[in-house]
């Protein structure tokens, strides 16, 4: 890596989570020269690693909040661009369900809130109507309403292709470089990173779980403190996806949206997340007792789940803060924007947040000229609800049998400017080892295909064995 920055960019985006990826895309499309700097060896390694994959309408967001506005804008833009970027959409809709009297009493207010947020197609449902829509639900359900435009998307393909589009249109990305400090001389930021110095005329902090720390490193202070909130999930076998068409949402509380039952874009069914406050910003551990509890909760709502095997478990960390709303703050005098505390809706709001960031930079007096020609990369198809590579000629043969991932898909993911550099990165790009057997069948073959590609290889060579 060079020691002196080769170029002064217009903007440095710190962090390649879903927010940073969307911001890099928007600013590039507006004509800024953007560089993204990410401390992990791969993108999407923080909060954006593990979420529920729901494209929220924002029906339950606080009316008038920045969060609500960004979700609405992000939602709209996702629907506009997703076909060109080849991103999936499961138009399944959601049912908000009450399971006791107290929850039932809160339904009318929630529907009011939804309408206030512009989600005006919600409709109350009786128990009989709910069971007619979702016959596998436990008849213990009392009442609810539907939110027809809550959808499911792919939590990794979307941000990856946002960043890819930024790169295809001239942005740069440095992975494995942590921003350690920096100084602003009135015109230019000089950032110190573990990968060498970087220079730009503006900085956007999208550091997610480290947003407050990055603020402190660069500004000496932060207007918020990250309070990581863990969410654990249990993922059921693909056969379980037949059991629920809609996203099954509980009545949310002040703290959390609650435990959801939801299909994934990949054809599974997930139950989660929990909401557990913790100090660690890195440790997304699961624990057996909580996973058991989630499974039981799933079975309570959808009894037929009892007969279905569990495919995977995981946890994600929300970058929550002491504030309820997003912490987006522009400091014009330092040409610096913080996009912090994007706790539980960032996948939906990212494109909207990115427009907000652009607006703020323009308010600094910046003006960029959008490129004449815009490149539109296409995401690989990972959804089970569309034709996948294994059905097409010259796929190189299936390597991961449970997720039907082909050799060509793996090779493609190991190639290019955003090549996977870790098994978890390869998983997010291709789904290898994420199915029922969790690597039983394909780990041997994968260790050969990925040889020499990862910092942390799957296995060492054993030339003596045979």
């Amino acid at each position, binding site marked *: 890596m060079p020691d002196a920055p080769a170029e002064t960019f217009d903007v440095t985006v710190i962090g390649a989570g879903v927010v940073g990826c969307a911001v890099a895309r928007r600013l590039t499309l507006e004509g800024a020269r953007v560089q993204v700097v990410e401390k992990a060896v791969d993108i999407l390694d923080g909060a954006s690693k593990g979420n529920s994959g729901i494209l929220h309408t924002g029906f339950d967001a606080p009316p008038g909040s920045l969060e609500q506005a960004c979700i609405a804008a992000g939602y709209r833009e996702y629907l506009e661009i997703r076909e060109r970027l080849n991103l999936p959409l499961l138009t399944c809709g959601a049912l908000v369900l009450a399971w006791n009297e107290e929850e039932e009493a809160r339904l009318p207010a929630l529907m009011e809130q939804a309408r206030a947020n512009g989600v005006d197609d919600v409709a109350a449902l009786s128990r009989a109507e709910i069971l007619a829509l979702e016959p596998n639900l436990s008849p213990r359900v009392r009442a609810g309403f539907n939110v027809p435009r809550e959808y499911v998307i792919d939590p990794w393909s979307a941000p990856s292709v946002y960043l890819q589009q930024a790169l295809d249109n001239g942005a740069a990305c440095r992975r494995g470089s942590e921003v350690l400090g920096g100084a602003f001389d009135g015109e230019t930021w000089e950032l110190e990173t573990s990968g060498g110095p970087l220079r730009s005329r503006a900085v956007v902090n999208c550091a997610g779980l480290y947003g407050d720390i990055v603020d402190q490193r660069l500004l000496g202070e932060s207007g918020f403190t990250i309070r990581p909130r863990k969410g654990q999930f249990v993922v059921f076998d693909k056969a379980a996806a037949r059991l629920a068409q809609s996203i099954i949402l509980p009545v949310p509380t002040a703290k959390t949206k609650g435990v959801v039952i939801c299909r994934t874009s990949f054809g599974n069914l997930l139950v989660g997340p929990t909401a557990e406050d913790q100090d660690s910003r890195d440790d997304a551990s699961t624990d057996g007792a909580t996973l058991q509890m989630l499974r039981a909760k799933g079975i309570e709502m959808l009894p037929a789940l009892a007969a279905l095997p569990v495919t995977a*478990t995981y946890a994600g960390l929300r970058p929550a803060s002491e504030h309820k709303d997003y912490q987006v703050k522009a400091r014009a005098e330092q040409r610096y924007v913080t996009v912090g505390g994007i706790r539980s809706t960032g996948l939906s709001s990212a494109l909207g947040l990115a427009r907000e960031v652009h607006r703020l930079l323009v308010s600094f007096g910046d003006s960029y000229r959008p490129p004449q020609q815009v490149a539109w990369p296409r995401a690989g198809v990972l959804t089970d609800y569309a034709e996948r590579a*294994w059905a097409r000629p010259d796929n190189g043969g299936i390597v991961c*049998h449970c997720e039907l991932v082909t050799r060509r898909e793996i090779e493609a993911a190991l190639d290019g400017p955003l090549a996977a550099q870790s098994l978890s990165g390869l998983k997010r790009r291709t789904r290898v080892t994420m199915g029922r057997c969790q690597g039983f069948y394909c780990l041997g073959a994968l260790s*050969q295909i990925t040889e020499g590609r990862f910092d*942390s290889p799957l296995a060492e060579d054993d030339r003596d*064995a045979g």
Partner: protein
Amino acid sequence: MPGDAKALPQAVEVAVVGGGPAGLAAATRLKEHGVASVAVLDREPRAGGIPRHCGHYPFGLREFHRLLRGPDYARRLVARAEDAGVEIYPQTTVTGITPGPRLSLSTPGGAADMTAKKVLLATGVRETSRAARFIGGQRPLGVVSTGALQSLVYLAHKRPFARPVILGSELVSFSAIFTCRHAGIRPVAMVEPGERVTARSFTRALPRLFGVPLHLGTELVTIHGKERVEGVTLRGPGGAEQVLDCDGVIVTGAFTPEATLCRLGHLELDPGSGGPVIDQFGRCSDPDFFAAGNLLRPVETAGWSWHEGVAAGDVLTECLAGRLPAAERHLEIVVDHPAIKLALPQRIALPFSDGALTHLQLRVTRAAGGKLEARDGDTVVWSKTLSVLPERRLLLPLHDVVGKVRGATLSLRFSEVA
């Protein structure tokens, strides 16, 4: 990589899904009986099944009357099948089954369809993953099943760790020790949640023999480490927890049939065995589909699975010749005791005639002793006093029992002596 892919036929007499010992045995048998076109479809680059990566003895006693290592055994099975005229299609994944019988396939050349007069499913078993066991912690590299370890060591010549913990004490857990030794890996402990070693008694001395400390009555609760395994938390018999330093975890055994095709398709599954519901002919709920080998249940040996394959080949030959009686009604086998994990066949086609499975196969969930009874309503038609352990074969001769039953169900109970 295998040589040039053969063109897949669109229609065959018998399509065998899975080219392990069971599938290859059945296909070979069918050819020996003169069945015109028999295709074995296997998703791996080579047929042979699990034994391909079991680099240890003993395989082949029943089949070849000699002691072989797994890979040699697998090669011989393939050679014998090919000599008999079986067409083997490797790198051919069956992605779906539908009535017809019809198979949806994926090959390196793309998607394809195949129809057959009859289909034999022989997709084997795998181990239960760490995730499905709800073992907590982060998700570092270095947590593998025995199957994955074997394919890393024997097929890819790689070593995923140096000092792993082995979870489980089934027979396969001991093959994990052999596999480790082969690659110069030194397991630091063997952890078994049960009170005793699950595998047969002769293996009990093995951990000590190999210097692997055995922790009985101990659960593996948490895996530590973000990038790589750095240790595990064990919870011992008294509930006390300790952290053990290690750089890998081998999650062994707790086998489960690879019944994905049945689960996603239209065939009835037995929650007890995890495999398809079959009758004594190995016939599934859709009688155009048959099943054999370890897909039927966790878990038997290669030799046993091979034998089931041979029997399935005989039955399928009869079936193609129109000599297999259709079921007029069924005698349902009902498991009526929590200590009994599974019983198969799950139903008997009546009027009774001998099929591929001559015995009811039972497994228990835990060590149990007492009287095992087969009842027709209140009448005991068969009983035996015995004591059994999990993962042990327990057989009940169908012939002795079925003729005595008047009702529509045969229930299996266990009167335990404390």
